[in-house]
């Protein structure tokens, strides 16, 4: 195992877990569902991609690399869908928005229009 691959893997893994930690801090600290959705989706997706790249670099096996690529693509596809469904459900079922909310463009929209 060459040292260069180890160094690159280490950087990728540390970047990945840092992003995941930031996402979880955001998930814990933000004060309404929609901003938590924002925190939990984007950086965690990049974290999964980076950890997949790091593990693929360390494993060096085509089958394992394929599984990691599938996992990364699955995360890229599923995270926005999940966030959208949860945010939509939370908004239309009347969750409290943060007091810092500047604009709510759906405030006078008709709920039944979106069923």
């Amino acid at each position: 195992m060459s040292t260069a691959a180890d160094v690159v893997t280490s950087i990728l893994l540390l970047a990945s877990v840092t992003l995941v930690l930031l996402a979880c801090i955001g998930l814990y600290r933000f004060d309404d569902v929609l901003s938590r959705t924002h925190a939990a989706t984007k950086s965690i997706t990049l974290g999964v991609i980076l950890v997949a790249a790091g593990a693929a670099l360390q494993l060096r096996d085509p089958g394992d690399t394929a599984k990691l690529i599938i996992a990364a693509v699955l995360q890229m596809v599923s995270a926005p869908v999940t966030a959208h469904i949860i945010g939509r459900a939370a908004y239309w079922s009347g969750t409290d928005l943060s007091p810092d909310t500047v604009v709510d463009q759906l405030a006078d929209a008709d709920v039944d229009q979106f069923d």
Partner: protein
Amino acid sequence: MIDVVTTICLVILAVSAALCVGRVVRGESVADRVLALDSLLVVIVVGVGVQAARTGSGVYLDVLLVVALVAFIGSTAVGRFIERRGTR
């Protein structure tokens, strides 16, 4: 070297998982809890990836795929229920 780095990574992931569990406990609504549990499963996915890089063996990568799929399907299904039933 890779042992030390992956140990640090796993410790950071443990802190992240604790934050997700804290959000599940504090809650405020079902949507928050579902989102936190989804993030907790993604933390597990990243942990399995780090462990694969640490041991250099790919046996647990199937677990990684299955956990990612279960996280997606579970969160989506509960999201549909929230939409029908309300967040409380």
